């Protein structure tokens, strides 16, 4: 029972930290965004006699831009918590609806690619640890290292070019859609039926692959070195001596020991993966949060920017929290201090 008590204490502590961090993210964001150059209202009210000062004034009032900085901050915090995220300056739609709409696509992209990444990374890492020093190990490690140093957007550009042409005149070469998120010319408005879902999956292949391969290297390398460490331990020898097959040793004795560093790595990588998703979305015109951010910066669309950063930060904090808790379950030796 004592362990449950400590777990509860750790959970509470972590939760308090999460709340503090999220609060910090909101405050930091407020100041970051408000030091942006340019007057957003000037940008949406076209200059000319047709539009008088009253429109400008109304907009200032609407977004509380006339109040003092602390008041703006208070308004901002209150609105954030009550999910009243205002209206986008440019799109004239509620920010929360825009962000939640875009977030679905980013979540789909990041989720799919993380899934591919873990699957491939664990498989490659385990195999190359298992056959240490073999041609496969050397090849996989060097290719992983190559991908590790590769700018995500660069690979996106190359794959985009590769799968929209027929290199060397190979007519059987598969063609994949270079941009967008489903075949909107053919299916019109987004409706949830089978052909559209298949189309969405087809449009997901390239972005998800790019994103997965970009962070695959870290996972497979960490998996490999964790397993290499484990494979030299005594209990592996014992397991072998018991007569377990190689697969059995790997599956039941070695792999579980490789999990904790993996989880820690993925939790740390989430921030990088989201950064990568931005680049991928930009290259493939995938209508997610990243694409929206770059649009919003061009238009100085403060409300959207503010909440995109907040949502991104919260996603990372929550992912880290979940990872910590998972670590606690997976590896009972860890005492989270």
């Amino acid at each position: 029972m004592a362990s449950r008590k400590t777990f509860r204490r750790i959970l509470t502590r972590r939760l308090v930290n999460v709340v503090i961090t999220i609060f910090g993210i909101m405050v930091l964001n407020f100041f970051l965004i408000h030091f942006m150059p340019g007057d957003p209202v000037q940008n949406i009210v076209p200059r000319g006699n047709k539009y008088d000062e009253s429109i400008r004034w109304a907009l200032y009032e609407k977004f509380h831009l006339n109040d003092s900085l602390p008041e703006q901050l208070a308004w901002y915090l209150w609105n954030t918590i009550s999910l009243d995220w205002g209206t986008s300056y440019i799109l004239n739609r509620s920010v929360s609806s825009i962000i939640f709409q875009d977030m679905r696509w980013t979540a789909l992209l990041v989720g799919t690619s993380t899934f591919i990444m873990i699957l491939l990374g664990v498989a490659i890492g385990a195999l190359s640890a298992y056959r240490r020093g073999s041609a496969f190990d050397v090849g996989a490690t060097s290719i992983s290292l190559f991908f590790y140093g590769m700018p995500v957007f660069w690979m996106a550009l190359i794959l985009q070019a590769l799968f929209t042409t027929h290199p060397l005149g190979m007519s059987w070469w598969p063609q994949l859609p270079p941009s967008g998120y489903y075949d909107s010319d053919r299916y019109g408005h987004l409706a949830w039926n089978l052909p559209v879902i298949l189309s969405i999956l087809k449009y997901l292949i390239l972005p998800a692959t790019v994103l997965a391969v970009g962070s695959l290297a870290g996972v497979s390398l960490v998996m490999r070195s964790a397993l290499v460490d484990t494979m030299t331990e005594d209990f592996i020898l014992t397991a072998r001596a018991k007569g377990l097959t190689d697969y059995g040793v790997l599956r039941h004795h070695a792999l579980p020991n490789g999990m904790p560093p993996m989880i820690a790595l993925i939790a740390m990588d989430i921030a990088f993966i989201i950064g990568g998703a931005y680049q991928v979305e930009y290259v493939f015109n995938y209508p997610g949060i990243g694409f929206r951010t770059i649009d919003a910066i061009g238009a100085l669309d403060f409300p959207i920017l503010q909440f995109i950063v907040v949502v991104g930060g919260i996603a990372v904090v929550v992912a880290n929290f979940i990872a910590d808790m998972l670590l606690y379950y997976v590896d009972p030796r860890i005492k989270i201090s």
Partner: protein
Amino acid sequence: MRIITRSGLGKCGLWRHVPTSLLLVAAIALLAGGLYPADSQDSERELAIVLAEDDGPTANAGGNQNVTKGAIVTLNGSGSMGFEGAGNLNFTWNITFSNRTAGTQLADLYGMNQTIHANQTGVYTIRLNVTDSLNRTGSDTIYIIVTEPPKTFLEKNWLSLIILGVLLLIGGVYLRRAIRNLRAGLPMITEAGQEKIKLTVKKTRKIMKQLVKNRMGILGIIILIAFGIMAVIGPSVAGDVKTQSEDPSTMRQKPSEDHWLGTDNYGIDILDELFYGARTSMVVGVVSAIIASFLGAAVGLYSGYVGGWKDEVVMRANDVVLSIPWLVLMIIVAAMLGEIDLTGIILIIGLTGWSYTARLVRAQVLSIKERQYIERARSIGASDLNIIGRHIFPNTFPMIFANTILTVAVSILSEATLSFLHLRPVGEVTWGTMLSFASDNSAFENGLHWWILAPGLCIVVVVLGFTLLGYALDDILNPKLRHR
């Protein structure tokens, strides 16, 4: 900073207005067709035949000019009439300005004399059209090339000056100590000092031996030496990479003997750009990594050493910075600053990238702080600053050093990514800006494969070099710290 998205058209729903606007255009065309006179009047035609014997007015725009940025250019137009009866001359200036960052801008000015404020580097293509009252025209085209003003000594050498200053400072400290020793009649090198030097040499030799044994580390060093040479000699080997060509035949060339990797959309040799960009990219990477490490080390040392609630506050702030996705924070800060030059990019990457280092340093400081020699130093009355400077920092330095090298890799990637997202240093050429311009001008579709492939490969290899060296050093310098 305005970012031009690549498919704004689809996103803002413009396609919905296509039918309406087509109708509108058709209506306007019909209207214009109906109003336009079907045939000119006979008398005018006769006059034109009579006047065709002379060539109409001639224009003179005043000749080509080369100016530096910020200059005010006066355009003195003049023209002569073909014959006396042609009435007054009308002057129209068609001004086209183009450069790599702004693209192409057009303007028309009317009047005989004009002034242009040349506040951006680039090329003005100016065409003076002269029209007389009989609608006959003459024209003259001139170019005004706006270049950067020559850099002052400080602007050119600020980095070298800083390095020189630091070296002088270190030298000065040693000199002062030597002079003090001489005056006091102490031996220059004490026995303890000799022993210390011997130990240091021995340790360095050991590290070098381990590094040579580490194949990955050696590969990293070889890569870095190669690219280091490229960075040092690059800009002097490369030709002019900032002035775009006016001659269309030099643009978009395939690889040839003269241009090994071909030329880009602006008629600039891609290999030249690659060599030029080597230095800028490496400088961005190294300097911003040093800034980040310095800040991270300072924060980590402070927070780890002080402990208590101050530590808690600093670490929570650190968590906040860490949890905002890496790229997002940089994009926002870059957009905040608006137009950024190379120094701006360096500062952005350096100032946003310190939190991970801070966390690492803090963890190590926490473990070092509890060791006995710290306790001893404190008991003989050493001040906090002294303990940090003399005992804690030297023990964390190997890790900070290895981590800095890893950070360089990330910084180079960051610069490339920022540049690619149009947050590029104004008027500079780096590998990142090359990629950015290449993708803006759809290099693959135009068959300019090397424009994208070459800088990308350079980035990959350099990042690889720094990563390999960093991990090798990390393995050697702190074997127990990372269980990898």
